[in-house]
């Protein structure tokens, strides 16, 4: 039976993931992998080894450079897609399955700018960054990303909301705007504006921040 490209990629991805987790991958580990259940793993490994993507030593399996490159790529796409799906409200399990299918389909681009935005999105989707609107009263965060038109961005910059500024949420009105402290002054931001400012939440730092009087 012909082995499909996707199946090979799937195995390389699983291997990459295992290596990232600092585990020495064995054939047994791979057979245990949920995502590879339906595949004939041994056959695929044989073919990958023959093509120079991996090396098999006894029960252990290593990725070679060529294989690592592909595995990493697929893995990145997978994370991105899975984040994206769960971000828009799809259930975790479902999101994982969809990502598994789509990761082999999306075109690979060698555009640096795209890569960067990809990273930015990943950061947001990974919930490392939260929209300002999700912060509670009294919480603070560091601005990491401001989306929106040139004018909005410029106006926010003039008023002190720029990447790496420390923002503290002073007040949230019902359905209305948010009042924040930034650069020693307070601003009122409409909900729409506040949902386009992404911050990295400050956790225990609030005690020695400058806004506490």
């Amino acid at each position, binding site marked *: 039976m012909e082995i499909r490209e996707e199946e090979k990629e799937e195995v390389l991805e699983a291997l990459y993931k295992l290596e990232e987790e600092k585990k020495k991958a064995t054939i047994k580990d791979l057979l245990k992998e949920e995502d590879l259940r339906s595949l004939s793993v041994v056959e695929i490994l044989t073919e990958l080894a023959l093509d120079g993507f991996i090396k098999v030593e006894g029960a252990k399996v290593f990725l070679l450079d060529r294989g690592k490159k592909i595995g990493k790529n697929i893995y990145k796409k997978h994370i991105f897609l899975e984040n994206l799906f769960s971000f828009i409200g799809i259930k975790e399990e479902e999101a994982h399955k969809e990502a598994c299918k789509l990761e082999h389909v999306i075109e690979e681009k060698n555009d640096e700018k795209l890569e*960067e935005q990809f990273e930015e999105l990943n950061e947001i989707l990974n919930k490392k960054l939260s929209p300002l609107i999700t912060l509670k009263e009294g919480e603070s965060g560091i601005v990491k990303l401001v989306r929106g038109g*040139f*004018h*909005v*961005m*410029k*106006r*926010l*910059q*003039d*008023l*002190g909301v*720029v*990447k*790496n*500024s420390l923002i503290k949420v002073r*007040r949230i*009105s*019902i*359905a*209305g*705007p948010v*009042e924040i402290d*930034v*650069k*020693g*002054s*307070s*601003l*009122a*931001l*409409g*909900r*729409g*504006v506040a949902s386009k400012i992404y911050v990295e939440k400050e956790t225990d730092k609030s005690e020695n921040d*400058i806004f*506490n*009087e």
Partner: protein
Amino acid sequence: MNRDNKDYDITIALAGNANVGKSVIFNELTGMNQVIGNWPGKTVELQEGYFEFEGKKVRVVDLPGIYSLSTFSQEEVISREFIIEGDVDVVINIVDATSLERNLYFTLQLLELEVPVVLALNQYDLALKRGILLNKKRLEEILSIDVVETVAIEGKGIKELVEASLKNLKQRKRKIISYGKEVEGKILENSKFVENFLSSKNTPFYKKFSLYPSRFIAIKLLEKDEEILKLFKGTEVEEKSKAIQKELEEIHGEEITTIIAQERYSLISKIIKEIEKIEPKSKTLFIDKIDSILLNRVSGYIFLVVALFLIFEGIFLFGDFLSPILEGLLSKLQYFINLLPLKEFYKEFIWRGFFEGLIAGITIALPYIIPFYIILSWLENSGYLARIAFLVDYIMHLLGLHGKAFIPILLGYGCNVPAVLGTRIMERDRDRFIAGVLATLVPCSARTVVLLGLTGVFLGFQYALLLYVLNLLIIFITGRILNKFLPGKPTGLIMEMPKLKVPPLKLSLKQSWFRLKDFIFFAFPIIIVGSFLLYLIELLGWNPYISSFFAPIIEGWLGLPAIIGIVLILGILRKELALIMLAALLHTQDFSLVLSSRQMLVFSFVVMLYIPCIATIAALKREFGLKRAITVSILEIVFAVFLGGILNKILLLLKWN
């Protein structure tokens, strides 16, 4: 703003963010010696005043409160142009000592212009109260400009400020405050390029640039400043700037305007670290406690509703009390006119053609507008208006506007003219236009006279209230429709929340006086001309023609007596007269004898909605241009008549007579 025949020796410009006490300093400097001027062709106000100091006449120009010197708003463009091209001898940059970090962002840009600058550290007392200690000496050293501590509200430091300013006239030589090495290097590279380019061009077009420092041009080019980019379009300067932008963007991995903004802020935080010390205060300031009550999601709204109710109640009580007294006094003037040695016809011509309009302006508009202006100015200075905008932002958002639009619309209940002019507080043309249109739909005091005098008196207060509710509903729907069909997108609220304070009443009285003067000069000629036209039409006997021409609409569609057509048409000239005209035409004050309840309701409804008056149309023209003023006027008339007819049909169907 022409200096050819100048009658002053020195020009000082006041510049700074909004809400830093700029207007207080302006008033301290100039007293009652001021005029509101409009920058030619723009709708930005520039206040100008004079004072004498050591035998010299000093002109002070109060620039609008701005946060930056880019060109994203007219205020910023004008301020920049004025500082450079307006022959300014020294700029006083007023900063709020309680939020120096944000304020210095503007200061750094001002210094990029390489003009003589003196810094006023205003609200110094409040900073101390908040435990903020500032090292003035060190700040002077770092910025290499003079710094004066002021408490403008108490008049403290004003004299020192004047002395420092006059000492610094034309002090252009100063050390340049450099940004980080990398960015500064690129700025210099671009600046050299611009300099070489400009010195190779000798055309008058590029001559203007000799006033602008090349470093400033270089920075603005990198910041993608629209105005300056336009001037260098297609030249090698544009290419060079783009190349540098790209280089910097690649190094930093950020967009270029962000890089430069970050550069300024990081410089500022270094400065702040050196000059500012904060002694944490354990207890919350009293004013901050009040602030939490005013902005609380329950008590804030309760307070807002109560405050608005009291303000309106107060204004209408005051107006209703003062208006008849003024009218009684002014109508005595007729006695003096009758004493003039003129033929009866001329006496009547003078009285009805001129004085009636003038008196109407004084008795109808002023008693309501004066308290409105004073209260509004006080609320504005106290910082409460910004809090109102914060509280109502959500509601205004449903209309495609943001919280700030509430203020001009609120003003509309007093008079639509200042309401339309007041839309200037919004940044974007689209927002201003929607707010302006909605403001004209608000029943002003003249229309309130009709609503209460006809519907309120003859049908009962609840029907007048019903009309007000209908009006709010119509404003709401119109807002949504405009928002949907006008090009562009609604903008979100981005507004500074000034610190709450108790402002001096004196300042509000002064500001109201100047605004009132502006209103009188703008609106009174129009009211008087309108009144004259009204008289002329009557004199020429055109009334029957007008009423028969519009009979199909008035009788057929609205179900009103044909003669009312005259009242509606002429009401555009003088709306508050609608009721008096109606009485004159129907030969009775008791409208219930000649009009059915249905007719009264329909009439009040149409009067409430169709374009307020000729002065409002003129205000629309001043703010939005002739074309839009005419379109709005016509649409509103059609709209009011259309809805009035529908109301008529509904009432007929309900057999409500």
